[in-house]
């Protein structure tokens, strides 16, 4: 049985918000009977583009994570709703506006915070994956149709096709530990929820400081080497994908023909070790 999934590439999102705007355009002022009532003019983010900055000036990184309803296989909102929220065979989770009328508590049932309360209409609301359009033959929901950066697409896949895609593209779920089995998969999620250690290597000769290109840099966790790279033309290096608050690391820089130098890092969130003169 095919199910519908969102596939989102964090590295390709640049916060243009076309997804958010297109969603608003589709739903503000439009009721889609059988699917959802209209979205209010302001305040709802059925797809929410979240921003993450990492590092310190000038070695930084910025990434964005579009966050729609996860359309979970094991959705807490469905369980909490007493039949007001259901999951279709194709995986789309829908809130029935009539049955959910007045049930403000359903907003809190979502561990991803993607259900919104519509004060005017007295109903909880969220992303429907534009089911009314998909059912009408549209190939993509509005958000994905408007995404020109290729960061967001909706796909309909058999389980094994999905597994192949996960393996091929290194897809991850957001907070799988919540156990809700989301139908949203992310690529390059580390740009958002992992940390990096970076720095710049330089050499000094005759009072002139130059960037040190091609220096071998190794990252150690305790005594185990867990990463290595070469500095670029600007002497910069970066080890990404490290867990937040993961503590002590050692960075070892090995310039060709001279002695190595070590720098310790206590990693809370992403860190720029600054310029290291070799």
């Amino acid at each position: 049985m095919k199910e519908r999934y969102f596939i989102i590439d964090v590295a390709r999102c640049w916060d243009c918000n076309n997804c958010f705007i297109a969603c608003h355009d589709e739903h503000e002022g439009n009721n889609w009977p059988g699917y959802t009532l209209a979205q209010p003019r302001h305040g709802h983010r059925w797809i929410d583009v979240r921003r993450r900055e990492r590092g310190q000036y000038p070695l930084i990184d910025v990434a964005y994570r579009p966050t729609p309803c996860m359309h979970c296989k094991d959705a807490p909102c469905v369980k909490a709703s007493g039949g007001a929220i259901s999951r279709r065979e194709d995986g789309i989770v829908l809130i029935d506006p009539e049955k959910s009328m007045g049930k403000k508590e359903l907003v809190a049932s979502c561990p991803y915070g993607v259900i919104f309360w519509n004060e005017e209409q007295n109903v909880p609301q969220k992303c429907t994956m534009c089911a009314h359009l998909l059912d009408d033959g549209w190939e993509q929901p509005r958000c994905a149709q408007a995404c020109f950066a290729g960061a967001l697409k909706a796909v309909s896949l058999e389980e094994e096709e999905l597994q192949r895609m996960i393996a091929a593209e290194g897809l991850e779920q957001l907070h799988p530990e919540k156990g809700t089995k989301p139908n949203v998969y992310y690529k390059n999620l580390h740009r958002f929820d992992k940390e990096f250690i970076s720095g710049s290597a330089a050499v000094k000769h005759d009072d002139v400081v130059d960037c040190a290109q091609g220096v071998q840099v190794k990252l150690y966790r305790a005594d185990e080497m867990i990463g290595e790279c070469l500095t670029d033309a600007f002497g910069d290096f970066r080890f990404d994908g490290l867990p937040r608050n993961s503590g002590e690391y050692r960075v070892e820089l090995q310039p060709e023909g001279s002695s190595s130098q070590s720098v310790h890092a206590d990693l809370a969130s992403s860190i720029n070790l600054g310029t290291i003169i070799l």
Partner: protein
Amino acid sequence: MLEKTQFSMLLFGLDKSMRMAAAKYPAYREKLGEMNVVLQFKLRDNSQGRVFTFANGKLNSKSGIHADPDVVISFEEAATAVRLFKPGRSMLDFISAAKAFQVETLGSDEQVCWVSGIINLLFHLNVDYGVDVGNGVRRYTNTTNGGPVFVYVKDDKIIRITPMDFEEEDADPWVVSARGKKFSPPKKATASPYALAWKSMIYSKDRLLYPMKRVDFDPDGERNPQNRGISGYERISWEEALDLVVKEIKRAKQKHGPGAILNGSGSHHTWGALGYWLSARPRFFNTIGFTPVVHNPDSWEGWYWGASHHWGQTARNGGGETYNTVEDCLKHCELIVFWSSDPEATSGVYGAGDGTIRRQWMEELGIKVVHIDPYYNHTAALFPGKWLAPRPGTDSAMILALAYVWITEDLYDKEYVANRTVGFEKWKEHVLGEDDGIPKTPEWQEGETGVPAKDVRALAREWGTKKTYLNSGGIIGFGGACRTATGTDWARGMVYLMGMQGLGKPGVNMGGLQQGTPVDTRFFFPGYSEGGFSGDLDGTAAAVNMYQRMPNLMTRNTSQQAVPRLKIPEAIMDGKCEGYPTNPMTIEGQFFKFGFPAPGHSPITMYYKYGGSHMGTMCDTNRYANMYRTQSLECVVNQAIWFEGETKFADIILPACTNFERWDIGEHANCGGYIQHSFTQSNHRIAVMQHKCIEPLGESKSDFQIFLELSKRLGIANLFSEGNTEYEWCKRYFDATDLPNAISWKKFIKKGYYVIPPLPENRRDPVSYRWFYEGRQKDTPELTPLPGDYTDGFRKGLQTQSGKIEFESSSLKRFDPDDPERLPVFKYRQSWEGPNTTELFEKYPLQMISPHPKFTFHTMGDGKDSVINDIKDHRVLVGDRYYWIARINTVDAEARGIEANDLIELYNDRGSVVCAAQVSERVRPGTIHSYESCAVYEPVGKPGVTTDLGGCINILTPSRMMVEKSHAMAGNSCLIEVCKWNKEERV
């Protein structure tokens, strides 16, 4: 005699056609019922005629001459009449006959327009447009400054606006082969966020839905100009409003004389060749005589006032040509330097999202990138590379240091410098410090820019050893750095650096894949600056092509007076000012200083403003609020879509509708004129019929219609409209393009768009400047420079006197060789407002930059209660107000006790603005980043004096000219201080 018989038959046939149309089409019947008119067709000598009597929707006609007709259409001879009466007549023939008085129309404008209407309507009754998509929904088409769109309408209400997906039959996109791969864009269009937000802007609570008058504006008594921006409005009827405006126009002309009426627009308006700011507006104002606002080249500044002296390109305001550089870049380039360049955020200009995928190819091919910008901009975030963040206004120090490394380490193209440039030795002296004792080493530049010497040396070595593209600005000729106090130097330096590296060599050129796609540049569909139906040969680029392509009455302003846009407040408050022209014709055009008032002309007593954008787009903008209180400014009219910004200072407000509520025609990303072939930003050229998707909201009218109504009252309606409606002008425009060779009018209006096919690979344009590099005659499809500017023969060399890249500018040498701000060879200068202006810097230690915004095109997108306000990087909701965002470095925020989303006050001696703080590592310490182009101006107290809550940070920017002998803004050289807002107004 034969002609007389034919004329007689034609008139008889006209009678029959009208009767049949009325019988068949209710709309036509209704139209006929609008007026009772006696219409006389005749020959001028009264030897033949037919009288059409329209009364209560009925038509009677008989041959003969009426004693007292309402409208007379008179022909010199029967042969002329027969020729002009034929369906499919030549408009050129018609215009020529009218100008020779071979055909004359007499009667009231109202009735004449109506008569033209019922005759012309016979040719387009029952037009079928748009596509039925079921459930009572029709899909129309339109286009915007952020891309073309489909518009879904049900029951006269827009239900959705989407990017365009193409059909199978539409042209397939181009394919570029590079490094063993093939790249081709998807077969669909893209749209910018502000394009997709249109529905929320159309159905906005800030829409002006009926004409209004300021409550204490009494044209026959107290006008109370001191209350502009303060007192409220009352609704008036269109009749009242139009009569009032016409009375004021006449009063200004009769009481004060030529030039008393000032008109200007924002530099952007709703899209469409007919409705844009360079079309209907100049056509009307030329016809009444007015003082135009002369636009400073606000996006180009340093390029126009600086770079053009070294490589010409004045037709592009000093920016470069960019033909087929996408292919060259993908094939050969190894490094792209984005210098003050954020094509993602700015879409280049009008480029929708088409450029993004091309930069993804860049990434796929492993082309390295470097970003030079005080802000870690959105292109940098999406395509990371080395980020160098110079202090604002110091970029030219980095330029000199790059040259220093290239010279001392032998990393530049000496042969190119010898053969393709002049004056290098003089600059080299400055670079090496032989003239001033200061070698411009990377270490030296570190003191100015704050960027480590080692990084600049590394960049110089990378750049000097790799085939490098330089993308200076979102498109070539833009960039925030060109709007600093040293913007001329930066732009001049960009040309110098390319002159050292061999501009035009394979893989060495200008661009960042934003321009230069292999679309068909030779298919003629004009851009907006080609003037639409303005007929304005002086103020638009109509003389390039439209004059021969679309015969229409040329229009010319009779007033020789002009006001520089940046000096409007001085012109009104002080009654005098000076400026320099934006003249793209030739390098020396910018040297002609002009004064206001012009000899023998009137001061400004009436300001007819089109839109309300200046508070958020010009500089030191409290001036613009204050000028409205000037007693001698007797009347202010604002024709606008939304009640925002300066619109709230008008005495009379005329509500205009959007381009979704009127007919128009256009191609996005096509400017023409000052960015010829700017559609090479697009992956697909898309000519769009801009359907009238819904009726105008409320009582709003199209700009065309407003000007037409005024024209009728001024007796100039025939001159303005030539008897044609907007729809009919669309057809005339269509006929002027190459579209009729490719698609029928019927199909075009039905389907709504045509994808102009790309040329086959062997007919693609040559790469820009390759001809120059190879020392050949110019072979790119660019009409400029004008023939007279070539010194070694037509299309040989550049526009400069030497025909080469001039390190030492011959034009500046001729104009003022000792001007310390613009020496013929660019030398380092510090900003007149920056860290080096120590006294001011002590008081205001933060440098604010205000680049072109990401989520609003100028002011179009912001405010208006639109969905854009909810975008987290655009505004922040605090309490019940959406605040504009100012970005501050963590260190500076901590020093001031500022946390994310705190309301903060940005201030200096010019004023104060409240914004929401975004605490970020993306701005270099000591710098504040806040976009220009806020649409909302909301002073807490008296306008022009008190703190603004709307977010017009341009209130803080200097009004000093970038260089004295220019008309150039330098908003990115701006010192301010920031503190948490204590909710008190600062005066």
